[in-house]
């Protein structure tokens, strides 16, 4: 029950099948990492879990704490505790981070209940301090004119504020220098705990030096081809993904991102 459970998932965009029978379970309290080469379908998996309308699930199921979420709208999945840190977060011109997050936190309250502004700001500032973000960020428009690092920090700030049951981090390390990476990893690590499952999607092993996973999965051609402990990440770093080429051959036509 206490897990995000994906079974035999198949996903297409147009005529192209991208995820081809993927199964994976992320229990609460654990951090799982999915690693894989470009075009293996990692980011597609992240978007499908969040309910992106461009993708079509042709078979399989996704259960969150035993409940099928595939029929739910993206916002319902979010309010029930699923969070996605985007690889490429959208800009929302004219909407400040403070107002945006406030609306998001408010959306999780029971109807008729108003968010207490002072409590909200106290929490917001606490999380911003954790992520070493300047207070002036609150009055900037969401992601507008942000550097790559600022965007990623902002994603983790939202993660920290919304406290989901399950968080999927899509290439959160891309575009970060080493200092920013450490700060972001610190933010994610502070979110680890028995009440939360985390799925980290990454191309490189580097992030996993700082967010040490309990389990590592290798994704190639829309499937999990191998699972192991954290040492698997190091092995991939050393040998690359070439050894999985034969899997690619079996799978037939190449998949797209």
């Amino acid at each position, binding site marked *: 029950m206490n897990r995000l459970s994906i079974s035999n998932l198949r996903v297409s965009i147009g005529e192209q099948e991208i995820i081809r029978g993927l199964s994976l379970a992320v229990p609460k309290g654990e951090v799982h990492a999915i690693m894989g080469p470009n075009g293996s379908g990692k980011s597609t998996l992240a978007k499908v879990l*969040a*309910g*992106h*309308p461009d993708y079509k699930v042709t078979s399989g199921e996704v259960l969150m704490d035993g409940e099928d979420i595939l029929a739910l*709208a*993206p*916002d319902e999945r*979010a*309010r029930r505790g699923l*969070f*996605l840190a*985007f690889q490429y*977060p*959208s*800009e*929302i*011109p*004219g*909407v400040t981070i403070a*107002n*945006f*997050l406030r*609306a*998001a936190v408010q*959306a*999780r309250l029971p109807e008729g209940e108003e968010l207490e502004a002072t409590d909200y700001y106290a929490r917001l500032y606490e999380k911003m301090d954790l992520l070493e973000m300047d207070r002036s960020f609150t009055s900037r*428009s969401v992601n507008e004119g942000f550097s790559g690092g600022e965007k990623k920090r902002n994603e983790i700030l*939202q993660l920290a504020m*919304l406290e989901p049951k399950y968080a999927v981090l899509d290439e959160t390390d891309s575009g970060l220098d080493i200092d920013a990476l450490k700060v972001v990893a610190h933010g994610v690590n502070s979110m680890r705990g028995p009440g939360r499952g985390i799925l980290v999607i990454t191309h490189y092993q580097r992030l996993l030096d700082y967010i040490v996973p309990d389990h590592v999965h290798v994704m190639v051609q829309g499937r999990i081809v191998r699972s192991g402990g954290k040492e698997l990440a190091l092995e991939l770093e050393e040998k690359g993904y070439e050894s999985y080429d034969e899997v690619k051959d079996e799978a037939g036509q190449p998949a797209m991102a």
Partner: protein
Amino acid sequence: MEVERNVGNFAYPETHTHDAGVGLTEKTIHYISDIKEDPDWVREFRLNAYKTFLSKPMPTHWASKDLEAIVFDNIRYYLSAGTQPKRNWEDVPDDVKRTFERLGIPEQERKFLAGVEAQFDSEAVYSNIKKAVGEQGVIFVGSAEGLKNHPEIFRKWFGKVIPVGDNKFSALNSAVFSGGSFIYVPPGVKVKHPLQAYFRINAENFGQFERTLIICDEGSELTYMEGCTAPKFNTATLHSAVVELVALKGAKLQYITVQNWSANVFNLVTKRGIAHEDAEVKWIDCNIGSRLTMKYPGVIMKGRRARGEVLSIALAGDGQHQDTGAKMVHAADETTSNIISKSISIGQGRATYRGLVHIPKHLKNCKNNTECDALLINATSRTDTYPAITVRGTGNSVQHEASVSQVSAEQIFYMQQRGLTEAQAMSLSVNGFVNDLVRQFPMEYSVELKRLIELEMEGSVG
């Protein structure tokens, strides 16, 4: 796509004691003049305007064929609740109070209404000049009272900023006008709080032709706020106002409108101000709702260093057409004007920007800045921009920027992933788009506008 209108879609029983009937003839004009006990010069003014109205063509050649749907013979040109302007809240009819309630005007603001003039139908039902304002020598009355009791000021400026024959609808207004405000601010007087007027239409087939004239004498300052919503009826309703502003030397005059007409209203309004030396006229104009709005607030910068500004927001819901813009006429050296226009089109809504900037050859050091941004919500939404900029001579500068953007599916998905519904995401996005303009509005108006946008967006998705 169905645009649900929750605001304004209600009406209360009508108790009109005077009714000019349907259609417009000279007899109608005499009827209105009799009822209103017009001075002779006003009666004559109306009759002349009526002739001009008949002789003017409809401006369909450059606007919208939709204007042809107006049948002048089916419109009532005068209705009155038969009540004299009231000064106490207790005297305000319950109907009217209920309407305010239904519009969701907050308790605090309702109290604030004790200091405003509110117009219901064609007469000011409720009018209470804030005591402090009166003590400063400010005249704040209905236009009928203005022309009778203050003819020496009223006559000097009435019809001078916008001549009767400016366009067919300014002529119509001049023939049948009733209601509207007359304000005079004496030299050097700075009116601290904005003066407000609320009004709405509450009679089927009834055109509202209010007439407002505001004069800020030398060095004075005033902000005037106008807001309106109308109940929804099956047949078209015509609203055709004329607003004239005069800012004498060094005066600052700001006129703010937030309006939310129901989807059957033709809103054809002529608004213009004259700014004398070192004076400033600023229009803040928000157009929400209506079937067709045609409105281009203008400023004639008549004196040196005069400034003109138009900030406008238009929201065209499904099936609506907002044809709005600004006119800036530079008529003296070193005059500056600024136009910022933002429009949002939803469903099959259409937003049109028309801007006229005129700087003649003999002038020096004039500046204009124009920015117009359009936001399209759906693939079927439409926006057009028609800037007409005439700049001659040397040392004059113009800057024009325009942009069209669309709310992207990725942006909505991103916001939904944070737990916002599609409608919430849309309204946040739209509010963000207009945010930098709205920030310049008085607080209560920006809150009201935000609420109107939310209501509009709620109906636009699903």
